[in-house]
C-alpha cells in the first residue's frame, strides 16, 4: 500500500497540540526591543511634522524614528510587479495616503514603554481631499492619490474575442448587472510578526518572519536593506495562517529590520489585530458592470464586463497585477468565445490590494456564475440545465479559452450533475413550492469553478516580477545513520506539506513516513525555493521532492551495487532494503548503505562520497483543478437572516497525496467563501477609516455560521508524474457564488435583486424592504 493516497496523520500535529509550536512571538532573545508605530489618522494628508523628540527621551526608549526627519535614509519599499512605483518609504516622509500608514516608529525595551512614549509624539498634518470610490477616482477632477502621475488610473487590461458588438445586439436577451465584490481581509489568526536580530558574524540580520516565501523575500530585502543575500537569514517558523497576506513585504516590517540594523539591537514587532485590519493588505474589491448575452434556449453567446480593481494607495508587492487574473479566467468552465472584458486599475486612499486565496479567480467565478443565475431566471430556464448547455464537455477537450488557456482535463458537466444530485436538487425544488407559514424562504444555488493553479512556470506571462521563483526545490540528505531529511522550499502555514512530502518520499525510498524528517522555512538550511501560495505545494513542491527522491534512490543503488559487486541495473530497492535481483538476501539496510556512502569503508572510492540530492522542478505549464458547489439556504424574510442548510462540494484535484489534507483545505476555503457571501467586509467611513477594524466588527464566521459541508470527489490525474492538481484555493472559488445564488433564488419571487455582498441580515432586510416599496405593498 502506498503512502500517497493515505489519510496519514500529520507530523506537524504533535508539537502544535502540545502548545510547543514556535510562532514568531514565541521567540525571544536577550536584549530584545519592541517597537510601536505612529500611524496616520488621515486617509490623505500632507505631513507637516512628526515630532519624536520627547518620545526619544522617554523611559525605556532606545530610538525614535520619524519618517519626515529621516526622509530617504529610510528604504523605499519596491513593488515586485512593476518596473516603477510611487515612492513608498518604510516610514513616510511627505504625504500619507491611507489611514494607518506608518510615519514614525518608537523602539523601546518593552511594548509598554513604547506605547507610553508614543503618547508624547506630536504629529501634525494638513488634510487633503480623499477619494474612496474607484469609479469616482477615474473621473475628471477627482483628488489625485499620486499627482505626479496625473491620474488615479494605474493601468488597464482589455481583452476582446469574437464580435461582441454584433453578438450583443442580436442576442435574444442581454442580462446586465452591476456586481460589487466587497473588500475583505485575509484575517490569519496569527497577526503579522517579525523578529530581526543583528548577526555580528555576517554583519547582517537573522529575521524570524511570519511569511509565506522566505527566499523570495530575502532577495528583495537584500536590495532594500543594502545587504548581500548571504548576510540575511530569513526564517519562517510556525506561521499561523497567511492566505496570501503574508507573501509580501510590508513597510512596517522593513522598518523593523532597518531599525535592528540601525540600533544594533534585536527588535521584535507583533502587530495588533486592529493593525492587521488597517495596515495589513486588503483583498478582492472589484466592481463589475457586466453583461451576458444569451439565446432563448439558454445558450450563452457572449460576456462583457467593464470593471474596476481598487488597488488602494500604494503599489505594495503584487498590487498592480492582482485583478488581472479575473480578466483571463472570466469564462470559467463554459464555452464562451465572444468576450469583451476591460479592467481599469485605480488608486484610492486605502490600504493596498494583494492576493487572497483564489485571488482574481474567485472574483471571476462570482461574476460569471451570478450572470448565469440571473440569465436563467429571466429566460425561465432551469439553472442546472442552463449550465449543462454551456459547460465544456469532455469531448471538446483540449479546449482553448479566449484568453489562451488550454483546458485538457475534467468532466465539468459530471461535476455539476453530481453536486445537484448530492444536494437533492429535484426534491429541494419541490420543497420550494410548499407554502411556508413562518416567513422562511428556501433557495438553491449552484456554481462551478476552474482553478488555475500551480504557480507557476518560470518566465510565464503571469510572472512579470523581477524576483519571483516559479520553480520549487527539494534537497534530500541521508545521514550516516540512514535517517532521511527532506529540505523543501515550500513555506507552509497550515497546509501540512511536511507530511505530504514525506508521503511522496516514503513511497520512493520505501522508508516509513514517520522516519522522514522534513524541514522548511529557513533560508540558511534550504536551497532557493518559491514558498507556499497559488496552490503550488503538491504540484510544484511535490514534484521537486519526487525528483530528489529518485536521485537518492539512484545513489543508493550505486552504492549498493559497489557493495554487492553487482551491476547497478540488478539492484532492487523495496520495503526490505536493497538487494540483488533474484536474491532476497544478502540485503542492505538504508543505514548500511548510508554509512558506506559517507565513509567508503568497504568499497573504497568507487563513487563520489556523500549522500544527498537536490532537485529543482519548474512546472511545464500552469495547472487546473475544477469542481462544482451547491447550496441550500433558508432566508427569514422578517429579519433578513440567511442560514445555509446544506452545502455540497464536488471537486476534482487529480491524485490526492493526503485526502485528510485535501478535505481540510476544501473546508477552509469554503468557509472563507461563505464569509465573503454572508459576513465579511472591510468597511470604510467617509473619511477613509476602516471602521470594521477588530474581530467582531469584522465578522468572521464561527462554528455555528458554517454548515456541514458534504464533500465528494472525482479524479482526473494531471499530466504530471504524480497526477496531482492544486486544491489549496479551490474551496474559495465557487462557494460565494453558490450561496449568493441560493439567496437570490430564495428572494427572487419577492422581487429582490442582489447586487452586492456580504448578505448580512441588515442588508437583506433592506433589499426586502426596497422590493416591497417598489411593489407598493
Amino acid at each position, binding site marked *: 500500500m502506498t503512502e500517497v493516497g493515505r489519510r496519514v496523520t500529520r507530523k506537524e500535529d504533535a508539537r*502544535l*497540540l*502540545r*502548545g510547543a509550536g514556535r510562532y514568531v512571538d*514565541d521567540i525571544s532573545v536577550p536584549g530584545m526591543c519592541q517597537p510601536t508605530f505612529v500611524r496616520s489618522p488621515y486617509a490623505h494628508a500632507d505631513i507637516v511634522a512628526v515630532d519624536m523628540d520627547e518620545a526619544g527621551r522617554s523611559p525605556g526608549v532606545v530610538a525614535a524614528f520619524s519618517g519626515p526627519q529621516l526622509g530617504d535614509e529610510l528604504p523605499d519599499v519596491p513593488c515586485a510587479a512593476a518596473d516603477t512605483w510611487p515612492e513608498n518609504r518604510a516610514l513616510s516622509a511627505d504625504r500619507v495616503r491611507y489611514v494607518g500608514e506608518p510615519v514614525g516608529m518608537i523602539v523601546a525595551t518593552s511594548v509598554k514603554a513604547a506605547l507610553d512614549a508614543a503618547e508624547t509624539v506630536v504629529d501634525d498634518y494638513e488634510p487633503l481631499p480623499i477619494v474612496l470610490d474607484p469609479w469616482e477616482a477615474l473621473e475628471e477632477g477627482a483628488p489625485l492619490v499620486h499627482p505626479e502621475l496625473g491620474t488615479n488610473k494605474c493601468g488597464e487590461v482589455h481583452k476582446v474575442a469574437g464580435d461582441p458588438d454584433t453578438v450583443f445586439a442580436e442576442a435574444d436577451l442581454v442580462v446586465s448587472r452591476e456586481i460589487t465584490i466587497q473588500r475583505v481581509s485575509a484575517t490569519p*489568526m496569527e497577526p503579522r510578526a517579525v523578529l530581526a536580530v543583528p548577526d555580528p558574524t555576517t554583519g547582517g540580520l537573522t529575521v524570524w518572519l511570519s511569511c509565506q516565501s522566505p527566499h523570495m523575500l530575502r532577495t528583495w530585502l537584500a536590495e532594500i536593506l543594502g545587504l548581500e543575500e548571504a548576510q540575511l537569514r530569513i526564517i519562517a517558523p510556525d506561521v499561523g495562517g497567511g492566505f496570501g497576506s503574508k507573501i509580501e513585504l510590508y513597510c512596517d516590517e522593513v522598518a523593523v529590520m532597518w531599525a535592528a540594523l540601525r540600533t544594533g539591537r534585536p527588535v521584535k514587532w507583533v502587530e495588533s489585530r486592529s493593525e492587521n485590519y488597517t495596515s495589513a493588505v486588503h483583498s478582492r474589491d472589484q466592481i463589475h458592470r457586466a453583461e451576458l448575452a444569451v439565446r432563448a434556449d439558454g445558450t450563452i453567446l457572449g460576456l462583457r464586463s467593464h470593471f474596476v480593481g481598487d488597488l488602494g494607495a500604494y503599489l505594495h508587492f503584487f498590487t498592480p497585477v492582482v485583478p488581472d487574473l479575473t480578466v483571463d479566467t472570466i469564462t470559467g468552465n463554459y464555452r464562451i468565445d465572444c468576450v469583451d472584458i476591460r479592467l481599469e486599475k485605480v488608486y484610492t486612499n486605502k490600504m493596498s490590494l494583494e492576493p487572497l486565496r483564489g485571488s482574481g479567480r474567485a472574483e471571476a467565478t462570482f461574476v460569471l456564475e451570478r450572470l448565469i443565475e440571473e440569465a436563467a431566471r429571466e429566460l425561465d430556464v432551469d439553472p442546472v440545465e442552463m449550465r449543462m448547455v454551456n459547460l465544456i464537455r469532455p469531448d471538446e477537450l483540449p479546449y482553448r479559452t479566449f484568453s489562451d488557456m488550454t483546458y485538457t482535463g475534467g468532466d465539468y458537466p459530471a461535476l455539476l450533475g453530481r453536486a445537484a444530485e448530492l444536494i437533492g436538487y429535484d426534491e429541494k425544488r419541490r420543497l420550494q413550492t410548499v407554502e411556508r407559514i413562518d416567513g422562511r424562504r428556501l433557495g438553491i444555488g449552484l456554481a462551478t469553478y476552474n482553478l488555475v493553479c500551480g504557480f507557476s512556470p518560470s518566465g510565464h506571462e503571469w510572472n512579470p516580477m523581477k524576483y519571483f521563483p516559479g520553480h520549487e526545490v527539494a534537497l534530500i540528505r541521508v545521514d550516516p545513520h540512514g535517517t532521511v531529511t527532506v529540505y523543501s522550499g515550500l513555506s507552509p502555514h497550515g497546509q501540512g506539506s511536511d507530511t505530504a512530502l514525506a508521503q511522496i518520499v516514503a513511497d520512493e525510498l520505501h522508508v516509513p513516513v514517520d522516519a522522514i524528517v522534513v524541514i522548511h522555512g529557513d533560508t540558511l538550511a534550504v536551497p532557493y525555493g518559491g514558498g507556499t501560495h497559488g496552490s503550488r505545494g503538491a504540484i510544484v513542491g511535490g514534484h521537486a521532492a519526487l525528483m530528489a527522491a529518485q536521485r537518492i534512490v539512484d545513489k543508493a543503488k550505486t552504492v549498493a551495487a559497489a557493495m554487492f559487486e553487482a551491476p547497478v541495473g540488478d539492484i532492487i530497492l523495496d520495503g526490505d532494503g536493497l538487494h540483488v535481483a533474484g536474491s532476497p538476501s544478502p540485503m542492505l539496510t538504508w543505514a548500511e548503505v548510508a554509512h558506506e556512502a559517507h565513509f567508503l569503508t568497504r568499497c573504497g572510492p568507487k563513487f563520489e562520497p556523500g549522500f544527498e540530492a537536490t532537485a529543482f522542478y519548474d512546472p511545464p505549464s500552469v495547472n487546473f483543478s475544477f469542481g462544482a458547489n451547491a447550496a441550500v439556504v433558508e432566508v427569514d424574510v422578517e429579519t433578513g437572516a440567511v442560514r445555509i442548510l446544506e452545502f455540497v462540494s464536488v471537486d476534482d484535484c487529480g491524485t490526492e497525496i493526503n485526502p485528510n489534507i485535501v478535505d481540510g483545505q476544501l*473546508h477552509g476555503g469554503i*468557509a472563507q467563501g461563505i464569509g465573503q457571501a454572508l459576513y465579511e467586509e472591510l468597511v470604510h467611513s467617509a473619511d477613509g477609516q476602516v471602521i470594521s477594524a477588530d*474581530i467582531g466588527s469584522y465578522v468572521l464566521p464561527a462554528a455555528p455560521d458554517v454548515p456541514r459541508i458534504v464533500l465528494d470527489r472525482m479524479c482526473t490525474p494531471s499530466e504530471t508524474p504524480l497526477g496531482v492538481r492544486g486544491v489549496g484555493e479551490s474551496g474559495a472559488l465557487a462557494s460565494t457564488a453558490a450561496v449568493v445564488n441560493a439567496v437570490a433564488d430564495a428572494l427572487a419571487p419577492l422581487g429582490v435583486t442582489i447586487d452586492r455582498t456580504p448578505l448580512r441580515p441588515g442588508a437583506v432586510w433592506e433589499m426586502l424592504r426596497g422590493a416591497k416599496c417598489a411593489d407598493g405593498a
Partner: protein
Amino acid sequence: MSIELTVNDVDHELTSPPDTLLVYVLREELGLTGTHVGCDTSVCGACAVLVDGTPLRACALLVGQVEGRNVRTVEGLAGDDGDLSPVQKAFTELHALQCGFCTSGFLMVATAFVAEAEDPTEDEVRVALSGNLCRCTGYQNIVDAVIRLAGGEPT
C-alpha cells in the same frame, strides 16, 4: 506581595504585578507560549485556558483576579507520561488543526465541554465552540472531533 498561582499543577509565586493580563503572565513570565494572542477585543478565543476547570479568556483576566486558583494551559493537557490527552488525540486523528494558532484555545474549550456534555447534538457542539475562531479548518473536523469525544459519531 507576589501573586500565588498554580499552573499545570505547579505552584508559582509570580513576579508580575496583579494588573498584568493572565495571558502575558503565562507567555512571558512562565514561558508557556502555547496560549496565543489572536485579537485585541477578547473575541477570538485563541487565549482560552481552564481556570478551576472553566474555560476563560486569558486576555480578559488580570492575574490578580485568579490569585490562588488552578490554571491549566495546553501544555498541561498531556499525561505525565507524555501521552496526548484523548482530546489532543481526537484532534490529530480527525485532522482538526492546520496552522495550529487557534488550536490551543479550542483544545481547552473542548476539554471542558467534553467533561460535562452528554450526547450533544451537532448544533450544541457548534454553539459551544462559537467563542473560538478558526480561519483554516472551516470548523468541521473540530466539530467532528468534539462529537466523537462526547460519545457520538460524526456524520
